[in-house]
């Protein structure tokens, strides 16, 4: 459910009208709009935003580890509409024991490498991704370095 002051923002209201179950929260802070989306709905919401709301660009996909809180991970999408000169942040909370979320590569091909990066550094898996693999770390690397329980220094011996 959206609060009334968020409904003033066209993009937020549009997503709410499209699928009222999809939006689980949101905020407008420091001039930036954030919508929290239920992980199961991410692909349909993204497709709607791209095709009907002119958010034709996906700037990046990244994640935040809230360890030890649950749901542990936030997957963060930054969308950009050139026509409306607007940016929008979508956020999905994913639980630590079930690290899977649907890939948005069918909507924007640019998600491909960004999702590989999130998989590589956080260990979140993306379903129906065309070639999920480690992209920055070596292929045989163990662990996911950007997790909060991964040490900053130390040797692997």
């Amino acid at each position: 459910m959206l609060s009334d002051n968020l409904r003033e923002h066209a993009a937020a209201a549009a997503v709410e009208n499209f699928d009222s179950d999809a939006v689980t929260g949101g905020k407008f802070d420091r001039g930036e709009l954030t919508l929290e989306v239920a992980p199961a709905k991410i692909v349909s919401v993204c497709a709607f935003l791209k095709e009907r709301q002119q958010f034709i660009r996906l700037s990046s996909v990244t994640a935040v580890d809230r360890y030890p809180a649950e749901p542990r991970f936030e997957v963060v999408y930054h969308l950009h509409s050139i026509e409306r000169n607007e940016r929008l942040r979508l956020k999905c909370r994913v639980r630590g024991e079930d690290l899977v979320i649907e890939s948005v590569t069918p909507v924007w091909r640019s998600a491909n490498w960004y999702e590989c990066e999130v998989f590589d550094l956080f260990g979140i898996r993306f379903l129906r991704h065309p070639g999920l693999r480690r992209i920055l770390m070596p292929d045989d690397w163990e662990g996911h370095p950007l997790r909060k329980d991964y040490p900053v220094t130390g040797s692997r011996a």
Partner: protein
Amino acid sequence: MSEPGVPGGIVAEVEGREAETGPRRMVLNMGPQHPSTHGVLRLLIELDGEIITHCQPDIGFLHTGIEKEFEVKTYQQAVTLTDRVDYLAPLSNNLGWCLAVEKLLGLEIPPQAQWMRVMLTELTRLNSHLVWLGTHAIDIGAMSVFLYCFREREEILRIFEMFSGQRMMTSYFRIGGLALEPPRGWYQRVKKFIDIFPSRVDEYENLLTSNPIWIGRTRGVGFISLEDMLDLGVTGPMLRAAGLKIDARKNQPYTSYDKFDFEVPTRTENDVYARYQVRIEEMRQSAKIIRQAMDGMPSGPWKADDPHVVLPDREKMKTEMEALIYHFKIVTEGFRVPEGEVYQVIESPRGELGYYVVGDGTATPYRVHMRTPSFGNLQAVPKMVEGILIADVIASIGSMDFVLGDTDR
């Protein structure tokens, strides 16, 4: 834990392809030490004769874990990390980071510091475009352009050295303003440079713009449709060479860019030659901005007025107890940044540079993600080179102007 993806990663994938493709196809490994890959990009290319049928970029050779490093540095210390991401445009990265943190803090930056920032980031754009032009021309075979470009670049680096003591990793911007006033004689030096620079751009153009070999190697080469580029995350001069007038300095102005008068150059041919023309014109526009910044530089303080964040003046520190305490606290502990998240976009010489910063109320960032233009642009390489001649690969990827430090972070 079972991992998805191709077992054995990219190498196994290519070896698998080699086995499948049969006698007519050949898999060629280009890089990571190939000089024209400007760092350590590796391209795995499958050829049918001289035509590329498949291309798979392999990145990560320069991955240094900078995003992890951010999480154990104070906000001010982290400025030095941003230099090292895109080492050809250090001040653009400083600016993106400072703006993001200042947005989190809600800091107002005094006009003089803003104009100075504009001036320095535009000098950085010149620096970056000059390196691009010189190396791109060398890749294609025009050796002498490199020497001309590096002559001007050397002067820019000396200008950087004069105010910051460093040629490349300047780390000159501070959260809340600038480190120091520029030294005496600095403006005269910039003025002298900017007076001759437009004639130097004419010189490069004399060497290349109507050079039949240059035209032959670049015109009609490296085409990729605008729709594909937008879908694949390409930004910056690549989009502008395809006719899309997009520039964060105009669309979502930051640091007073809205007070400057400049054009966003575009072309419609969407090939290597058009990208060259766009960047040449951008250099002229940057020179124009630098001149405006110098002529209209407002007076006032160099730093924001917030004693909790900005270091006090040296003079005050030695005479006022209060200032000394603040100095000690900021240097030893850093300053606290309120909880929240921002995504700050600036137009780096390569395209959209975004800093996503999550603050948690402590003196170190909780999470920093850099949306770097090179990473986004490189994703379009396969689409761009598949179906063209292998000889055109160098010209095509050169026109993207990527930096591998920026890609791998």
